[in-house]
């Protein structure tokens, strides 16, 4: 158990140029290669939360909504739900999406690996179909 920031690697310095410093990430997948200590947390329907945010805080086209998702595998289910036919068009308000695909956290040859790898190819077209425009998508920055 960590009791002080300095016990992290890199002495607890939050490095803006590193996606990993000072600590690794957390995942909802216990079978993932990077899985570590287990803790129970409250989970929220992100799509619903995002709908509410757009409804209350979106003021028009000139406003930028920038979404960065680095959710260690959870991005697939979240974004698939947001681009479903019956979902709202809130996702279409996103001007720029940064995300990291996480198929590589699963063991190669497993169903999870294949599904997450396929999602990398299918998501941009699913967005285009939903919103009628190409997604401005970037990799990890």
């Amino acid at each position, binding site marked *: 158990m*960590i009791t002080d*920031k300095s*016990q*992290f*690697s890199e002495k*607890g310095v*939050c*490095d*803006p*140029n*590193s*996606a990993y*410093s*000072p*600590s*690794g*990430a*957390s*995942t*909802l*997948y*216990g079978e*993932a290669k*990077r*899985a*570590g*200590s*287990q*803790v*129970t*947390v*409250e*989970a*929220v*329907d*992100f*799509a619903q939360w*995002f709908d509410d*945010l757009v409804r209350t*805080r*979106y*003021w*028009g086209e000139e*406003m*930028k*909504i*920038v*979404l*960065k*998702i*680095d*959710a*260690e595998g*959870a*991005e697939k*289910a*979240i974004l698939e*739900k947001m681009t479903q036919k019956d979902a709202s068009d809130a996702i279409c308000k996103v*001007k720029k999406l*940064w995300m990291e695909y996480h198929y590589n956290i699963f063991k190669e040859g497993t169903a999870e690996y294949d599904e997450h790898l396929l999602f990398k190819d299918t998501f941009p077209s699913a967005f285009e179909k939903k919103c009628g425009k190409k997604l401005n998508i970037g990799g990890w920055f």
Partner: protein
Amino acid sequence: MKKGKRTSIQFIAFFFILAWTSFNVGQMKRTKKYFAMMEPPDGIFIDVGANCGNSYWKLKKDPKSGILDSDKWETYLWECNPQMNTFFLRDLANTDPSIHLIEKAASTEVSFSNIFYRISNPNLQAKLYHFWNFLEWIVVFLFNSWTRSDNG
């Protein structure tokens, strides 16, 4: 009243006025920020998996990104790793009312989920774990040898 005493009172009064003014300027800045939130923001930055806030800092320090380039941005940091929230993100959110910290896991349903987070310096932790196991094994081995020789 003696001159020296009067000067001391004047000095104390000056000090209090200065402190009071500084406090109010700080308050005004904070109030201004809250009022700014009632206006349309320039943009909204949502960071799902905020880690220690590294992406926020990267964008904030890079004016060319066009993101978080004014005080009129709203930021929503999602992070469910309790270590990151305790040691980094709560402090960050407390510095600025336009930063909102959501200490929950982003998912497709409302529930309680198990998350699996990396401990700091996991290699070191693993080494220590093996070291203690090895030490325990030696103690048990020595104890068994000693009791066996006693019985013999």
